């Protein structure tokens, strides 16, 4: 029965989530970032909304995390859920980003409204080593108002939100790695 439910869920997930928050245009194009002279890859937009709203959540290991503790480095803040197909697709790319940027970038994953077992099982199944915070009641996600799931934000070392990604992106591609690398180097 459990496997039947899982299969049904998987099918529905694929059905439903293909319509959620992903771009039909994966071919990157470039737009000029006049303010900082850094080219912004397709699928990422300026999102100058000021200071990032602080929050405090536990991760799947029970460790408490506060967003404000990340000051001093760029932050990649990512909202996701296991039932969202594009979120599942994007995870390996985020792992690549984490592996590549390592000490230069905080990767902050926030799961929206799922329980610890679901998150743990999901991350294990797709084979990534990313930890995730648990927004168990979904309220932090609501406050951040992502356009859909998945959504990623880039926050500068001063704690200001600067960019928002539209839908899932291939974060492991050179295009995005270079972009984030330039942001980091510019702020150093």
């Amino acid at each position, binding site marked *: 029965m459990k496997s039947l439910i899982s299969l049904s869920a998987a099918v529905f997930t694929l*059905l439903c989530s293909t*319509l959620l928050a992903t771009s039909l245009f994966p071919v990157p194009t470039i737009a000029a970032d006049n303010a900082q002279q850094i080219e912004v890859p397709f699928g990422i937009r300026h999102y100058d909304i000021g200071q990032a709203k602080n929050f405090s959540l536990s991760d799947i290991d029970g460790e408490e995390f506060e967003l404000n503790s990340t000051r001093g480095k760029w932050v990649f803040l990512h909202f996701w859920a296991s039932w969202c197909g594009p979120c599942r697709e994007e995870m390996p790319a985020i792992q690549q980003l984490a592996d590549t940027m390592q000490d230069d970038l905080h990767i902050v994953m926030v799961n929206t409204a799922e329980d610890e077992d679901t998150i743990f099982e999901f991350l294990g199944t797709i084979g990534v080593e990313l930890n995730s915070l648990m927004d168990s009641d979904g309220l932090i996600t609501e406050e951040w108002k992502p356009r859909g799931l998945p959504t990623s934000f880039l926050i500068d070392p001063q704690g200001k939100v600067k960019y928002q990604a539209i839908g899932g992106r291939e974060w492991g591609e050179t295009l995005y790695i270079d972009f984030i690398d330039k942001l980091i180097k510019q702020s150093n």
Partner: protein
Amino acid sequence: MMMGLFPIMLVVSATQAMQPIIIKTADMELGLLPRSPDQIISFYEARGFPRSMQDVLRKQCFITTGISNHSNKKIWLDLESWEFHQHGKPIKRYHRNEWKQRWQKMDIPMSKQSTFRWTLIPETLDYLPGEHEGGNVILPFTEGYFSLKATFKTGDDKQGKVITITTDKLYCAEDADEAASEDAK
């Protein structure tokens, strides 16, 4: 990373006979896929939604909706401007706030309310060039075909041309066994 509507068609054809209605214009694409109660409930059940919530949702008509902006201008979604009709009579779409109120009255856990909200298409959204977002539209269950007239404003200031998309081929999907028993009558 790219996932369009085509994969949906493949999976649906393998499970149920439902086909998405895909309407393309020069500027955008609108995909509409009716969901059967079993499909809907299997998803929410697997997410641990309480039985009381499932019972309510099983009686509704779910249309999974995807919108893609193929233009180089903003396209504005405003569900208030969407008109559903059958035999000249309007079919009232459920606003997400109605669900919020209902779930609150039923004391549904916040986590389930949140997940439910994320499965709905936003009431309003400015679709950026190249963007695709979607989610469910929920209507009262209605037998037979009905129509949709969906209008979209365009441009940063919403002063661009208005895109109007219509279809009279919408329907509420039934479970396979329900449909079979109807056919046998």
